[in-house]
């Protein structure tokens, strides 16, 4: 059976909200939990020791825990935080850029790669496997055909590298040195007043025709529609996907997890998770279409 994972929280939540969230997640039927700040260097509600403590608690609850690195590394301070998560020997690290791979390799820490790492072909996977890669995420813009070729190629090479797919949530699409939230409030990035705390699921960016295009989340831009591959789970299993990633949101996550769990067990979900939330769904990337498209299953 495919594993379910909770990706790192991409939004900025208060320390209490983060603890509350994982307190509940400890009881959910997820196998793997990614912990840490993957987006913004200024988001430090939780200190490294808080994250380590949380990681140990969740591990004690039977969860596999992976520590996620920051995606855009810009400064010496960023590197210091990166080294902190690579200076332990209890947990695997999710490398979200090449700095993280370098530091993890240097410290002999097992690592997997997140969906922002550019892995588009088997040659790249082979190179990384030699350096200690233990698993990888499909870049969000790739779909089932490429994934199937990658998994087949890995088998032909005799490589056992479990594949994970981002399957539910707002897609992380871009990272910038500019903070779009601070920009919205006419604040300098260095003095942003942590306004992201007021937007626990980002700020909607709409076209002048009110189309939900993107979500602004500090220095990152996410999709305006919510990626949802629940109906594609059986296909993923056939292709050989090992883990299905759900991206945390502050409302309704328990229901989302419950339904994905039902579907991976071959049951029919009792209700439609899309009714939970107001954002439109999309699944275009999976079918090789624009990511924002919604392809009906029968047409896939």
């Amino acid at each position: 059976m495919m594993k379910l994972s909770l990706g790192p929280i991409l939004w900025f939540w208060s320390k209490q909200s983060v603890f509350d969230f994982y307190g509940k997640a400890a009881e959910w039927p997820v196998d793997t939990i990614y912990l840490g700040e993957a987006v913004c260097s200024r988001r430090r509600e939780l200190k490294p020791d808080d994250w380590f403590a949380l990681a140990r608690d969740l591990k004690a609850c039977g969860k596999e825990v992976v520590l996620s690195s920051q995606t855009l590394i810009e400064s010496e301070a960023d590197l210091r935080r990166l080294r902190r998560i690579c200076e332990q020997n209890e947990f695997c690290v999710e490398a979200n850029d090449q700095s993280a791979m370098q530091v993890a390799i240097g410290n002999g820490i097992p690592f997997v790669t997140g969906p922002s790492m550019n892995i588009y072909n088997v040659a790249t996977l082979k190179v990384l496997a030699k350096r200690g890669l233990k698993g990888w995420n499909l870049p969000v813009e790739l779909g089932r055909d490429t994934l199937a070729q990658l998994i087949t190629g890995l088998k032909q090479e005799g490589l056992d590298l479990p594949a994970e797919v981002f399957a539910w949530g707002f897609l992380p699409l871009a990272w910038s040195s500019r903070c779009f939230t601070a920009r919205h409030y006419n604040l300098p990035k260095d003095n942003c007043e942590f306004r992201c705390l007021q937007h626990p699921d980002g700020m909607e960016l709409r076209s002048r025709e009110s189309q939900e295009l993107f979500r602004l989340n500090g220095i990152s831009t996410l999709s305006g529609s919510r990626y949802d591959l629940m109906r594609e789970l059986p296909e993923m299993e056939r292709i050989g996907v090992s883990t299905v990633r759900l991206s945390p949101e502050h409302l309704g996550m328990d229901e989302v997890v419950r339904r994905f769990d039902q579907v991976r067990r071959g049951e029919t979900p009792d209700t439609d998770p899309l009714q939970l939330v107001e954002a439109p769904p999309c699944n275009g990337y999976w079918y090789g279409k624009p990511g924002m498209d919604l392809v009906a299953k029968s047409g896939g």
Partner: protein
Amino acid sequence: MELVCPAGSLPALKTAVDNGANAVYFGFRDSTNARQFAGLNFNDKRAAEGIEYAHQRGARVFCAINTYPQPDGWEQWKGAVDRAAGLGVDAIILADMGLLDYAAQKHPDIPRHLSVQGSATSYEALKFYKDNFDIRRAVLPRVLSLDQVRGVAKHSPVELEVFAFGSLCIMAEGRCYLSSYLTDESPNTRGACSPAKAVRWQETPQGLESRLNDVLIDRYGPGEPAGYPTLCKGRFEVEGSLYHAIEEPVSLNTLDLLPDLQGLGIRAVKIEGRQRSPAYIADVARTWRHALDDLESRPESFTVDPGWRNTLSGLSEGGLTTLGAYHRKWK
């Protein structure tokens, strides 16, 4: 510092060389490079002619193969590396780790430069590429402040090249999927951002509209200059405000930073714009040649000539330029 100029076509290549480029970069006429434009780029014959022209005049030629091959494109991308090697280029600009590995194994003597699409923003990332693929040079993404560039340069195991002038990419290059989210093509997959095939212009009672795969990117009032609908430079609504929520259409211009960049040991400055005309390339290359020569001859008293500034402003998007992320206050 070396002046590295874009060559979208053979006339552009010759113009860049004639106007003082130390090196030019080009791509093949397909999706193996990150600037796939209709009618631009090189076949092997034109590339050979361009390389000969440049070499006779003491300029170097780099070949950009900086998109990310998927399994069904692997042979084509590998073939592009072999073609570049066979043509006798002075360096291959690569982003994909698999392709970097292939080039290092198969053509070890041809220098490998890490493309900006390789997204290396720290010296640890640069060490990764140096340790694993023995790259000689890296192009830094346009997301670092000058102080941050200083930090990277201090510990970098390789030569650094930075963007000096041209369109401003606001996102960390190589890790931006906004374009494929709207259109199915991105710089990584198809060498295209906001591809022309998805663009539509329409006069409406509300004004001139630009659309990308039917998404309204911007609407212009009478007489308002209209830009190409690059999706991150459109006007959008956030919390009831309508503005350029991601980025204004402006160009990067770092003339003012030249002494600083030189002081940091930056090896080369790069001009963006393989999609530009030879006339544009001529003006930009000539201006930067003057600036670099001045810097070379009197580094202590270097000042930016107002004439250079005017020339470059006239060539910029919306007539506006910015120091972009190099400027710490930029937001």
